[in-house]
């Protein structure tokens, strides 16, 4: 089951308008529910994920949809998916650890967690078995943080012992598959932030006059923007290859490419926008901050690059990738 080309285009435009029109994460969550975005996620996951996360990245909007995407791969329902606790910045293991009756949880709550009564925690034990359970939000004692990107509304969860009303149930699917789904979504969102940074820098380069001409005439500026354009295109391609392939390995590579290229976009676009881009009077700083946070979710580019390289060194072979 999938959508045809026309349906995909219509759906993408509708989602984009929805993201643009929602003033908050809660409003976007509500609007997505009304739109049937979750049904689309089931019918045509690629179109649903691309449409929403690219729009979120472009417009620096947010929602709890990342939890839904990760949760869906573990058999967690939509309602509880939005309250899924993710690994914290720089980590990609399940946030909970089932050791005896006491489950320590260290992770990040997505926007809106504090407005919920129930969160969902995924935990793993010494045997590697994966479990999930609904947990009272109060039991997680989430702390809303401003952090780098205060618009995002993330909450830090760090508790030594969580008890659950319902027993821990064996999760469907694997953690690797769930993380892969999240990484593809985050790669799309990073791509959105890069597109906006490039648009802003390009507009500035064409409008800003120095030495009697737009700075877009100077090769030093043109080549920086060209590098960002290449970074955007390479990220799109890597994401495409990850969907074609569908494995955790390719999802990880897509996130690596997106995170690495997002840094190129941040660096060059900030330099082209120069002084004004360093102020809060211009919107660039929003995309820069959002992109940094997104890189840190479910494994940052630097950590994952090293991990991927270590796996290749261990295997002593380069596996087949991107078949024609």
């Amino acid at each position: 089951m999938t959508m045809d080309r026309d349906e995909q285009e219509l759906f993408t435009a509708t989602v984009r308008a929805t993201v643009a029109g929602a003033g908050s994460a809660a409003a976007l969550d509500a609007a997505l529910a009304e739109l049937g975005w979750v049904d689309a996620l089931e019918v045509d996951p690629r179109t649903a994920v691309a449409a929403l996360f690219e729009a979120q990245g472009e417009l620096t909007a947010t929602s709890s949809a990342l939890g839904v995407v990760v949760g869906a791969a573990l058999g967690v329902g939509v309602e509880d998916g939005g309250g899924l606790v993710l690994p914290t910045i720089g980590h990609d293991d399940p946030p909970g650890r089932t050791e005896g009756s006491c489950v320590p949880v260290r992770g990040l709550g997505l926007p809106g967690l504090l407005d919920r009564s129930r969160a969902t925690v995924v935990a793993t034990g010494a045997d590697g078995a994966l479990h999930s359970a609904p947990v009272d939000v109060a039991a997680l004692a989430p702390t809303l943080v401003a952090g780098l990107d205060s618009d995002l509304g993330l909450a830090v969860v760090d508790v030594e012992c969580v008890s659950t009303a319902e027993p821990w149930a064996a999760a469907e699917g694997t953690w690797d598959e769930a993380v892969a789904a999240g990484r593809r979504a985050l790669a799309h969102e990073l791509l959105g932030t890069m597109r906006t940074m490039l648009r802003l820098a390009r507009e500035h380069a064409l409008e800003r006059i120095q030495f009697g001409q737009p700075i877009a005439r100077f090769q030093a500026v043109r080549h920086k923007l060209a590098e960002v354009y290449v970074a955007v295109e390479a990220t799109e391609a890597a994401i495409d290859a990850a969907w074609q392939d569908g494995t955790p390995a390719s999802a990880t590579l897509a996130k690596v490419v997106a995170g690495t290229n997002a840094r190129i976009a941040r660096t060059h676009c900030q330099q082209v926008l120069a002084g004004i881009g360093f102020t809060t009077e211009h919107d660039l700083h929003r995309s820069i901050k959002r992109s940094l946070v997104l890189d840190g979710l479910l494994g940052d580019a630097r950590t994952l690059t090293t991990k991927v390289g270590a796996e290749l060194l261990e295997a002593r072979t380069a596996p087949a990738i991107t078949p024609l």
Partner: protein
Amino acid sequence: MDLDEFRSGLDAWLDEHHDELVATSHDPGDLAADMAHLSKVKRMTFDAGWMRWGWPERVGGLGGSTLFRAYLGEALTGRGLVEPGVYSMTEVLAPTMIDHAHPDVAAEMVPKLLRGEETWCQGFSEPDTGSNLGALACRAVRDGDVWRVTGQKVWTSLAQHSQRCVLLVRTGTTEDAHRGITALFVDMDSPGIVVRPIVTMHGREEFCEVFFDDVVVPVERMLGPEGNGWTVAMELLPFERSTALWHRGAYLHERLDTLLATAEPGALSASEVGAAWAKLFAFRARSRMTQHRMASGDKLGPETSVDKILLGTAEQTIFDLVADGLAEDVVLGDDAESVRWRSEFLYSRAATIYGGSSEIQRNIVARRLLDLGADR
């Protein structure tokens, strides 16, 4: 024939004929041996039909998707049976002939290239016009039914092994710039042509200077009408950055695979290997999309500059790994494997220079894809 059928059929055939198809000479400095081997592989794949798929029937092909060509080159380079630089010249020059030569000339000549009976070269760059192709000066003067060509080309790959040359000449005035250029299909045994190979830093006579002194070329060897040379060039350049680069990606994959199997434990850094792998992944993902766009009939254009930039970066990153991870072999080794690694590392330095330097590609991206307007 669909791609899966082609792939499994070709793979089985390559397995079966591996011993005949594998090169016997491993001296990277021996270009003549490489060319002889290339001819043999092209002849065998043509006669077995594989080389004919994806080319129009009017030039000896069997028709079908251009993806067949992409996969054939991927399989041959990925298995190390041919060197991608010399193999993929076909992907650059045959489409140009099909699109612009007189149909009779194309029908007569293209099969010779596909079957490896002939080698062709591409006479574009000149001593004073490298990146600035529109300023080329090699002159052709009309004399009845012939053009008389006088001038010089440089960086002409494989000219000393070539029977023909796709040559850009100035037929208008220098002030006409790109409007005064015409493309000719020239026999390299014509009187008045002198070829002087240039030895590159990786020890191969990879390309040449070519001198033309009153060389006679019949008018029916024009590619398109007089003054059409710029169009020919602009339509040819994307072919340098499409199927040929897909083949090169398969070769890089094979070399990285061999490096991982060869390097001593601890010789390579995990973060650098991961970064190279991600670059190769992104390049191949991009090139894959280009192959599919080409197969669906899209006309390729400036967007292929992105492919070239990604290829250049990926190739140099991978061979930087080689230089670091196999440093002793690259610096001191005189055995066949070391000599090959050294040669390939050195050649990789050209990946951001040949076929339009990375700076020229970025100029194209800025002007044509980002629409930043003129730069001067």
